[in-house]
């Protein structure tokens, strides 16, 4: 799949991938490290360190990377649940206006909040146990002054139906539901204000495999139906491969590779991406094999290595990698990489199969 080609959408996928909805430019978020009685600042955690990407409306863009690489921090900055240290985040509103989320204050953010919502990872902590589903789903409507009680009830019932729950559940409390059902409630709440961009931080990681499939299907269906844009944060690469149009790979606060899903999975251009691919356990016992496994530990974001942050673990590192930081550049149309040797290296990704059914269960 090359960059200028329209994304192949499966049957029933009626999405139109449109213009840019969000531009993130040189986003940085540093957390101070404080020590001692007087809490003096002794250093910084470079949680997000110069991240630049663009999200197109209607697409699913995934953010992947090892634990602690800054995925959650990036998504929280975009939602302005925290204030970034520097950088720009231009959000294109429904009415065509563009607002820089990084600089907006509380009152400027208020109208934009309706257009961006979030789906959480933990289906238990994301619903207030003291509230009924009606109160939970109706809250965004209530605080934005939309509709009277009756109308909110109707809308909440409609949303419940949309996510596959019975409207009668409105008077129930979250404790009566399983993890998957709660996740549906969380999705219904996110949809209440008709947002355009939904940030989903590991929305299926806490769920059982079979429930995971139900939620992924639901997310894709809602996207087709409402033209939603997803910023999807995950570390399960099979899930990411399944749902995303484009994927951004993060390592120690930086984007190291950004490309369309198939290009990234089958033809990675960054050694880190390649080793991630090698680490995916394939659900196929006949594809076991000796893999080049990534050695060592993730770099400390408070004291990243010199030059390329990946060089201590990189099997292809050269002298230049220790001295100079590579820049994030477009190596092929739509394929961005941060590596000195991106153009010369031939890396392996996930093998492409002609026969996709070979791995799924054959009927006996």
């Amino acid at each position: 799949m090359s960059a200028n080609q329209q994304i192949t959408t499966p049957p029933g996928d009626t999405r139109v991938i449109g213009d840019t909805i969000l531009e993130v430019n040189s986003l940085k978020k540093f957390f101070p490290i404080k020590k001692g009685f007087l809490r003096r600042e002794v250093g910084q955690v470079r949680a997000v360190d110069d991240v630049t990407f663009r999200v197109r409306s209607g697409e699913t863009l995934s953010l992947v990377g090892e634990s602690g690489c800054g995925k959650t921090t990036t998504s929280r900055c975009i939602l302005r649940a925290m204030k970034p240290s520097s950088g720009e985040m231009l959000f294109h509103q429904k009415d065509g206006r563009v607002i820089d989320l990084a600089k907006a204050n509380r009152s400027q953010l208020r109208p934009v909040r309706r257009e961006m919502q979030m789906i959480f990872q933990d289906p238990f902590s994301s619903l207030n146990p003291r509230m009924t589903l009606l109160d939970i789903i109706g809250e965004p409507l209530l605080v934005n002054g939309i509709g009277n009680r009756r109308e909110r009830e109707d809308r909440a019932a409609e949303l419940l139906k949309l996510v596959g729950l019975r409207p009668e559940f409105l008077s129930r409390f979250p404790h009566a539901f399983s993890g998957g059902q709660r996740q549906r409630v969380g999705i219904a709440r996110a949809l209440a204000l008709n947002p355009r961009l939904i940030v989903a931080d590991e929305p299926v990681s806490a769920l059982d495999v079979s429930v995971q499939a139900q939620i992924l299907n639901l997310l894709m269906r809602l996207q087709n139906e409402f033209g939603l844009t997803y910023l999807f944060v995950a570390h399960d690469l099979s899930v990411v491969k399944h749902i995303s149009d484009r994927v951004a790979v993060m390592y120690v606060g930086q984007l190291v590779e950004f490309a369309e899903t198939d290009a990234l999975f089958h033809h990675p251009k960054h050694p880190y991406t390649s080793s991630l691919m090698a680490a995916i356990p394939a659900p196929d016992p006949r594809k076991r094999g000796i893999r080049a496994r990534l050695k060592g530990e993730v770099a400390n974001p408070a004291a990243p290595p010199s030059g390329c942050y990946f060089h201590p673990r990189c099997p292809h590192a050269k002298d230049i990698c220790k001295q100079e930081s590579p820049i994030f550049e477009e190596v092929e149309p739509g394929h961005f990489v941060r590596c000195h040797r991106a153009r010369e290296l031939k890396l392996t990704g996930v093998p492409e199969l002609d026969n996709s059914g070979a791995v799924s269960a054959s009927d006996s």
Partner: protein
Amino acid sequence: MSTEEAPLLSVKDLQTHFFTDEGLVRAVDGVTFDIHRGKTLGVVGESGCGKSVTARSLMRIIDRPGKIVGGSIMLRKPRNDGSNQIDEIEIGELTDDGREIRSIRGESIGLVFQEPMTSFSPVHTIGNQIIEAIQLHRPLDDRAARNRATELLTMVGVSRPEERLDELPFQMSGGLRQRAMIAMALACEPDLLIADEPTTALDVTTQSQILELLQDLQEENGMAVMLITHNLGVIAEMADDVVVMYLGQVAEKGTVDEIFYAPKHPYTKALLQSIPNIYQPSRVELPTISGSIPHPYNRPAGCPFHPRCPEFMPGTCDVHVPETLVSPTGQHVRCFLYTEGAVRIDREEATAGKDASQ
């Protein structure tokens, strides 16, 4: 499954129930499997199907209202005196917390707990906890035990092991803590390592390091591994034999090849299809298993899977409980779809299988 040698551990018709105030929970309800030396048995199933309770039953560490109410757990343990004698120990019949079971824990069977965060005491250093585990079974003095602990950490791939020994659990990352947990379980070179979701909380890269570690250890010591997970990718990568559990019962059991290429039970099939697969085209709708696991207090009558089963046969599946059938290759399946076939093909083995598991 074809190994000639008698299995290291044979579990037959194990039943572990919880007698709670609200009712009876049949967490494990007739589970049968064998674990062979040097092999890996994978156990898969949805959350709450009884994987952890099975593992804990093998070590006799079930939480309070729980009790083993039936079945047998036979451990075959070579004598220590150098003779080729093998002791057969019925774990199910040992007295609670007696000397025998305590010597089996750690020495014959090591357990890596599901929650690496809560399995270490937060107030003692990793080193002290590993040393304690060593000294429990080996008559080593502090210095020797500490050396052994360093050795273990090196073995599980922890860099700077000497320094790490003096760290507190919360100072370590999830991956390191998981390695330390494995090191502790390996302290006395157990014959069987039970790893309960050893990688669920970890990154793919760390996960693959841990899995590789387990494979290496197994090659070196001929240790048997019981690997509990709900990640089918991990099973495909690691297991020799696979047990698929549903609501406390074994729905299907076979070699990893049989389970992935010739699954018989509708639950196994559905489970395999519902996972997103990196080889599949993106964005297709995934087949799902409808509904969710029933509440543990009200199990469905008949086949426990029948309310969700796509092949459900009214009048049979919701009335009768299917028996375990064994194919000529040794694949076990508990489903009415195969009742006639299996009996006709191999009546003897089928009945033998039934004896074993009913």
